[in-house]
């Protein structure tokens, strides 16, 4: 009878586990990804600063280069040159601004990058790369180093930027993202997560996914951890109940002491010595910080670097 029950329980456990594993790999996940439609007209350079106002030929040439890069990478590539309005933006504001501006131009969860070059003259300057869609997974791990290859061409903040410096920063950026793209191999054990929107970006079976739910690998890890904790709980439960099945305890021998018949010929507590030690009191303190965020937009993976 109890054998039947244990078989049933084990069977139920196996079925549950199998169902979870199957749902992880084949369960319906709404892919929020917006595939790139080949339109490179959204890509280009946004010159809020007016840096190239006097050299529209150079600007057109650069923008064409950026659009070529976009065509090759099959994603939007936008380079933003901050103007006066950027002067009072904090680092977080820049992060937010880049994400929103990108979504406005190209749409939520489309594939693309948005490079914010902080050239309005504030110090320190903060350059940032915001990645959307598959760009998040491809560049996510190296995002800061990509920003650095671009802004290493620029002088330290406070110095005047020459046209040559800015041009080579943009070209360098395009070259870097192109070569990283070519060298990228989809890996199902890697995913990126935007903690503001809760979206995950990952490749599964060679296909790119943007989902609200965790990627299969992460869910498998959660499942494994949950199973281990469940097993530990079951084992603890087993030993706890088993130990409660003992109802034998030795009687306290103190109950047999004949209290009137205790005779101490010597019962003394003699003071021997005393000593005092002193120690300096150490003091310590600590402090913490907070943060904020955006929500409702597309998912972005971003990173930046100060100049």
């Amino acid at each position, binding site marked *: 009878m109890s054998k039947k029950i244990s078989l049933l329980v084990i069977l139920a*456990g196996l079925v549950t586990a199998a169902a979870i594993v199957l749902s992880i790999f084949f369960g319906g996940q709404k892919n929020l990804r917006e595939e790139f439609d080949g339109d490179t007209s959204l890509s280009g350079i946004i010159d809020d600063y007016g840096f190239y106002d006097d050299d529209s030929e150079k600007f057109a040439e650069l923008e064409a280069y950026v659009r070529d890069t976009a065509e090759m990478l099959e994603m939007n590539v936008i380079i933003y040159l901050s103007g006066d309005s950027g002067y009072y933006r904090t680092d977080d504001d820049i992060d937010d601004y880049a994400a929103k501006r990108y979504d406005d131009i190209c749409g939520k969860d489309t594939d693309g990058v948005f490079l914010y070059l902080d050239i309005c003259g504030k110090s320190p300057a903060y350059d940032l790369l915001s990645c959307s869609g598959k760009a998040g997974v491809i560049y996510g791990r190296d995002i800061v180093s990509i920003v650095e290859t671009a802004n290493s061409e620029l002088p330290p903040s406070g110095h005047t930027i020459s046209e040559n410096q800015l041009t080579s920063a943009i070209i360098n950026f395009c070259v870097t993202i192109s070569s990283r793209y070519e060298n990228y191999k989809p890996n199902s054990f890697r995913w990126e997560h935007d903690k503001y929107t809760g979206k995950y970006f990952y490749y599964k079976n060679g296909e790119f996914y943007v989902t609200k739910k*965790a990627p299969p690998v992460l869910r498998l890890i959660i499942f494994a951890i949950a199973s281990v904790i469940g097993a530990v*709980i079951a084992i603890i439960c087993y030993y706890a109940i088993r130990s409660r*099945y003992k109802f034998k305890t030795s009687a306290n021998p103190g109950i047999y002491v004949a209290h009137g018949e205790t005779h101490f010929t010597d*019962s*003394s*507590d003699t003071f021997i010595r005393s000593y005092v030690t002193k120690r300096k009191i150490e003091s310590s303190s600590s402090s913490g910080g907070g943060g904020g965020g955006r929500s409702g937009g597309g998912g972005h993976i971003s990173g930046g670097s100060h100049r």
Partner: protein
Amino acid sequence: MNAAEYKCPNCNADLKFDPELQKLSCEYCLSVFTVEEIKKICAEAENSIPKDSMVQSQQEFEDHNQLYHCSSCGADIMCDDRQTALFCYYCHNPVILSGKLSGAYKPSKIIGFKFTKDLAVEKFKNWINGKKFVPDDFKSEQQIEKITGLYVPFWIADCKINVNFSAIGKKIRHWSSGSYAYTETKEFRISRQGTVAANGIPADGESKIDDLLMESIEPFDYGELKDFSMSYLSGFYADKYDVDKAGVFPRIRTRASEASKKVVRDSIGSYSSLAVSVEQYNIMNTDWEYMMLPVWFMTYRYNDTVYEFAINGQTGKLAGTPPLDKGKLKSFCAAIGIAAAAGLYLIGGVIF
């Protein structure tokens, strides 16, 4: 000198002189005495009560008991001669009449059953109802029918213990002043020397019954002790002891030492730490009484293990380890584990 003229005050065996220790030692119960100690103890024992009507009551015992033997587990069961024992209280196999017990086995005292069989059965049922993981037939009426009223042979010891204890105790006080923390340590030399008495320590003389089980249903109220009479046995079984005084003495010694230790430790006030240098408890003298104490007893055989249960026939205190249906328990725990894992997975899915 010839040491054999002295008897061990704890188990009554002959004492032998140990030249190495320069002391008298008992090879049965391992007690050790100096010659002076023994002389003193013997002198005190001289004026103890002479036995008068002993012989007559022993004769009555011999005439009216019947001894049955279980060839299956070796138990020797004694009954009043007006009833017949049919089954062994321990292994539930048929028993055969094997004769009569000699007067030497007559207990001096007895406590009669006070907790009735109906109460014992009810107590057992209530207790077992809360246990979900016992085998089903353990709860059956057939099993509960096996509860047997049994007089268990007990050796009851009154011990005099010599105490020798010394230790260093520390009292620690902390305070702070300005930016300094101070620690004051006061040291005391603690000494306790003297004698402690532990009276009425019981030890059952039946090797088959688990010692801890019998300790678990203690204490018995010796205030209700009566002189032994065969009439107490009618309707019950009694057991013939197979462990003598010397055999139970190690258990008595342990418990007497623990009792003395408690007296000593309780007499010591609160110290932050105690470093004990000497702690000796030597039993100097033991007075024995052989008696029968009432126990509702039941055994259950499961997976080749015999599970024993006992209810104090005087107070109703219950003890025993119920058989555990590991299959039932494992399924239950596995179900909990699976539920927990599934719950955690769902929570994990919400968080991530």
